[in-house]
């Protein structure tokens, strides 16, 4: 008895201590938040600037996406060999988060607290990056060119430090939806989307055009690689066009699953999962693992996709040539895919902003350079960056994969907004690498 009473007393005392430790509500915002020091130049020295990123080098999103940072690193090496930006070499730290949000928080805190990075550039993934946006904005760390098309990055009031990069999923969905409505009129359409912002935001765009044609909506979770049930459901619903809003691994899995059940719909794939070279590699790889051999060219032929960066197959494009030269010099062993190109353009765009921020570098100046609207370069559609918008590329073109896995443009670049505005063809001028001349002193 004595023992239990003392146990109660102590438990009471400890509970009291905990009460004191957390007397204000855990979900209430602090009354006096520490103001971030935006004029900080953490991570900057006279001759270097440290930046970091979180990438899925392992895990479900790694096939394909693990090459983005390889491309980015090649561009940084090229810039550093040419003397850096404003005399500063770029020290690029890549942390693997395995597409696991818990790990993302951990590695981003590591980058900010231990590596003392100046900015986070191109953090990859919606489920992952959404967990660190608040942290980075509270700490006042620029969070640039997020590798995801979620709408969440474009919120200048709440997240002044965060900027998007790729065309957002709603804009892309609108362009896809309009294209399907005009070119596959009257055909039954099925959606196959990732169960997160990718799916939700894209459907906001698709639904503006396709509600009448849609017969089935299926979703997948990146942890479950068996997509046969969903594809069977789409087949059963009679969908003739399948809009696949999938990461590369899941585009490949859906194509294989469809082939397995003898289902031949017209696939329309969004830019995140429509890179022909990455897809053919994955198709071969997955098929080999299940003991089959497939002709990826045959499976991919006719697939329709959207994009906003120049395709690596367009060797006459001055930017493709420029990046191919960097590729051949720094990462010749790595196949040059659109995914590698994605990382290269991202690194190039960041370096442009870094240059525009001037020689007396602070975090605020970098953010100002981003919003200045002066960033023009490799992309085929313009960035939406301004004081009121932090959205990345504002439009896309539509392409189709040829039987030899090269691509042809079906519909030239068009731009639109993230609400219900019209889709208009884009014919703005595009600067060449020589005109941008990034490494000029």
């Amino acid at each position: 008895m004595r023992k239990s009473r003392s146990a109660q007393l102590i438990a009471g005392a400890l509970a009291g201590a905990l009460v004191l430790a957390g007397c204000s509500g855990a979900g209430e915002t602090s009354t006096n938040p520490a103001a971030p020091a935006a004029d900080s130049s953490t991570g900057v020295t006279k001759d270097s600037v440290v930046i970091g990123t979180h990438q899925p080098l392992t895990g479900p999103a790694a096939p394909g996406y693990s090459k983005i940072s390889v491309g980015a690193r090649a561009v940084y090496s090229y810039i550093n060999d040419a003397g850096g930006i404003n005399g500063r070499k770029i020290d690029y730290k890549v942390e693997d988060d395995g597409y696991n949000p818990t790990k993302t928080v951990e590695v981003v805190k590591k980058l900010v607290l231990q590596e003392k990075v100046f900015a986070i550039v191109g953090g990859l993934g919606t489920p992952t990056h959404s967990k660190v946006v608040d942290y980075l904005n509270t700490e006042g760390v620029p969070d640039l060119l997020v590798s995801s098309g979620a709408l969440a990055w474009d919120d200048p009031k709440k997240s002044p430090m965060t900027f998007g990069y790729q065309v957002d999923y709603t804009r892309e969905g609108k362009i896809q939806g309009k294209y399907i409505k005009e070119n596959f009129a009257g055909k039954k359409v099925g959606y196959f989307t990732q169960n997160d912002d990718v799916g939700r935001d894209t459907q906001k765009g698709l639904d503006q055009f396709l509600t009448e044609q849609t017969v089935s909506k299926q979703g997948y979770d990146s942890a479950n690689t068996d997509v046969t049930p969903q594809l069977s459901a789409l087949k059963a619903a009679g969908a003739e066009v399948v809009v696949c809003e999938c990461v590369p691994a899941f585009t490949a899995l859906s194509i294989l699953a469809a082939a397995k059940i003898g289902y031949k719909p017209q696939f329309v794939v969004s830019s995140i999962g429509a890179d022909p070279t990455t897809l053919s590699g994955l198709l071969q790889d997955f098929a080999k693992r299940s003991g089959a051999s497939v002709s990826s060219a045959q499976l991919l032929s006719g697939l329709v996709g959207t994009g906003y960066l120049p395709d690596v197959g367009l060797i006459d494009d001055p930017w493709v040539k420029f990046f191919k030269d960097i590729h051949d010099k720094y990462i010749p062993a790595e196949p040059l895919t659109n995914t590698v190109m994605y990382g290269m353009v991202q690194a190039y765009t960041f370096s442009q902003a870094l240059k525009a921020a001037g020689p007396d570098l602070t975090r605020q100046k970098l953010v100002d350079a981003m919003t200045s609207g002066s960033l023009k370069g490799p992309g085929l559609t313009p960035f939406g960056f301004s004081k009121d918008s932090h959205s990345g590329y504002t439009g896309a073109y539509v392409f189709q994969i040829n039987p030899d896995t090269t691509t042809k443009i079906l519909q030239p670049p068009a731009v639109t907004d993230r609400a219900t505005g019209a889709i208009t063809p884009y014919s703005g001028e595009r600067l060449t690498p020589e005109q941008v001349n990034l490494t000029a002193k």
Partner: protein
Amino acid sequence: MSVRTQISDDVLPSTAGPVRRKRSLPPLIVHLLWAVLGLALVILLTLVTDPFTNLRMATVGYYLIAVAGLALLTGFNGQISLGHGAFMFIGAYTVALLVIHVPTFPLWLDLVLAAVASGVAGALAGAAAARLKGPYLAGATLALAVGLPALTQRFPDFLGGSNGLNFTVNSTPDGLVGVVPPTRWQTWVVWLTVLIALVLLANLIRGRIGRSFRAVRDDEVSAALAGIHIGRTKILAFLVSAVCGGLAGGLQAFLLGTAAPGSFTVALSLSLLAAVVLGGLGSIWGALWGAIALVYFQAWSEDFADVLHLSTNVANNLPLAVYGVILIFVILVFPHGIQGGIQRLRALRGRSKRSEGES
């Protein structure tokens, strides 16, 4: 076999104990003193290390309570669970939902409710598990780890789908904002909670309940003959263990401000069990070594891979490979885990001292 000899060692001093016990302090006080000492040590360490090391210490903290809970279940009660990540999942989502929907609740209440929620789940799982043994039990708990996170897909609006939930936990008292860095404060809160839970756990293990756990583990028939209700004891062990798991999940959510299904994979459940085995079955100290190993082996092997400039394919698999090799090595050299090894070394030293004294 070896387990039984350990038990008799445990039992002997307590039967011959009353004389000695009167002089020594009651176990609760001893445990509390250890906890206060531990907290003081943690606070001291956080003061001399950088914020990121603080974060890692806090990570060790929440893994410690999860591993300790699992050690109680597996080491003391002989039940295996391949699904403890599921209880962390429940704890994390409870805290997340409370922070988002009931922002006025203080953190301690959120954590208590997280522990209660996972305790209820643990009792339910335990009721099923008490009827199962060996591979069947392993399979059933594994199903829990695989199935539960899928709930987020079922209720995407409420649980956030694959994206999970993110939120900001405000825990620093207003007076300390700007005085104590947030990461340091979080580390203190995590360790305070963990140590309180460990004191309760240690007391439970020392007391009548702990003895019945061990009796059931060693021989169910004789335990039943001694008047112990087998089913109830097993369910209780599962419940306590689940509470620990839930608390760990709640602390993780508090620390990282996120709860997402991608964090509670089967791999997490398996690595918790590996940590229990590595640290030493059936010991809270073992849980500490296991938790430290879980956090630091990975960090070290990643740094190591960085230093060697290994290709990404090698570098990415190195942490797992290193962990595996260390696990095999420890089990070969110290079959009772790191804590078992420490005890054996201590026993050897004691014996050599004694023999020196005799000669």
